[in-house]
């Protein structure tokens, strides 16, 4: 057996002892949370325009793009009495299965109107599989201040610009 030198052992002991006085790197979870980066991909949101109409037109491009087949879209036609989005169609059924979703953001990239976007929420615990399928109502953004919600009634034959002018079109 080669020489057993105690000096490195003692140096090692000193290093661990010194480490005991450093500030611990533990984050005390429910009280201190992690600051997410701005492009973090968390739970999805269905966005609205500033005038309250929904951006989603029910084209199902997000469902086609999804690699995990997590999105289910059924479209219906808008009428002037019951209008959800500008244009002809809206998504009457929109469900995302959070258990299948891989949070890749391809749906966000595929959307032509920038309706579906991934937000910063990562605290998504559920207790049974049915709770993991979130519906249109749970996904829709709240109505912005000063606007009417959907469904709304529009006057027939009035051809105002149904997509409003927005300073920042995103």
């Amino acid at each position, binding site marked *: *057996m080669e020489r*057993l030198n105690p000096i490195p052992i003692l140096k*090692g002991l000193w*290093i*661990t*002892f010194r480490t*005991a006085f450093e500030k*611990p790197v*533990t984050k005390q979870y429910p009280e201190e949370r992690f600051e997410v980066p701005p492009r973090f991909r968390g739970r999805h949101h269905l966005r609205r325009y500033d005038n309250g109409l929904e951006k989603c037109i029910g084209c199902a491009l997000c469902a086609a793009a999804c690699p995990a087949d997590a999105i289910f879209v059924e479209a219906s036609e808008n009428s002037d009495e019951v209008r959800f989005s500008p244009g002809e169609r809206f998504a009457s059924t929109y469900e995302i299965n959070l258990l299948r979703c891989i949070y890749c953001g391809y749906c966000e990239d595929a959307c032509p109107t920038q309706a579906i976007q991934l937000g910063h929420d990562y605290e998504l615990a559920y207790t049974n599989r049915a709770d993991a399928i979130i519906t249109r109502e749970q996904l829709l953004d709240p109505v912005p201040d000063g606007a009417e919600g959907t469904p709304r009634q529009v006057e027939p034959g009035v051809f105002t610009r149904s997509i409003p002018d927005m300073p920042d079109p995103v």
Partner: protein
Amino acid sequence: MILEWVLKSVVIILFGLVGFAYTTYYERRWLARIQTRIGPNRAGPWGLFQPVADGLKLIFKEELVPENAYKVAFMLAPVITMVPAVIVMGVLPWGDLWEIPAFTLFGWDFPGYVLDLSLANINVGVLYILSVTSISVYGVVLAGWSSNNKYAMLGGLRSTAQMISYELALGLAFLGPVIMAGSMDIFEIVKFQQHNWWTWAPSQVVGAIIFFIAMIAEINRAPFDMPEAEQELVAGYHTEYSGMKFALFFMGEYVKMVAVSAIFITLFWGGFAGPGVEAFPWLGPAYYMLKVFIVLGIMIWIRGTLPRFRYDRLMAFGWKILLPLAIFNVFLVAVISFARFGSA
């Protein structure tokens, strides 16, 4: 008389069990600080109820006995491991002899009494300690063999071989204090340290280091914990144990940690002695607890720093390095004792 024994036994058992529970808490917290993290701090204020939570969990766990296990030995092995750890604390004095003066209460006369703060101050205390710690080797080998599992068997054999190898160095290290104090009686040894501390301390340093290393090996604690190495042997000799039986093994390990720390400080660090003990007798137990706490902290610190010894190097270290060093220590202490104190 009997009341005194019963009360002292209850105190020692309680100290063992509560000490075990809070040693696990102390270990998890101190080990965590060495690793730049916080230990358990959620169960109760500052995580102080964590051992209670652990105990409750182990009670509710399913107890599996393997089909072809030898049931008698399987059930007895944890007990054989655990009991010596508690009873070895019986001979250690917690404080100086306490002279309770005679007093009268409610018209009854209580005569004066000299209370000995150890359960049984036998005059071969060192021999008692050495023999009792050897009994727990049986528990380990029986656990490994009766589990009907080849990994448990190997773990049990390795652990047994390790424990008996390091017992040799341990026994020789015990001789240092015995030679210098001239007695195997533990109370005498502590008193000797109290009066001759500045001769005792430098001459016993080598013996103390040998004792410390041998005792960590004896209780299968890191870096000598190959027999229960999770990576190599699943869990060594306690692989097949679950629920309360496993809790007993776990308890045995930690109570042994507390017990050998107490033995170490009693033989090498003055036990209950310290500045001011003659004037304030209550300082005796206070110093005792403080010293046990510090020695436990050192053991946990070593666990958090050193990697595990490979088994053949562990055996080589015990036989080829520690044993000759322990023999040399006996000579050294004998020479110093003779030079300083004359014969006998």
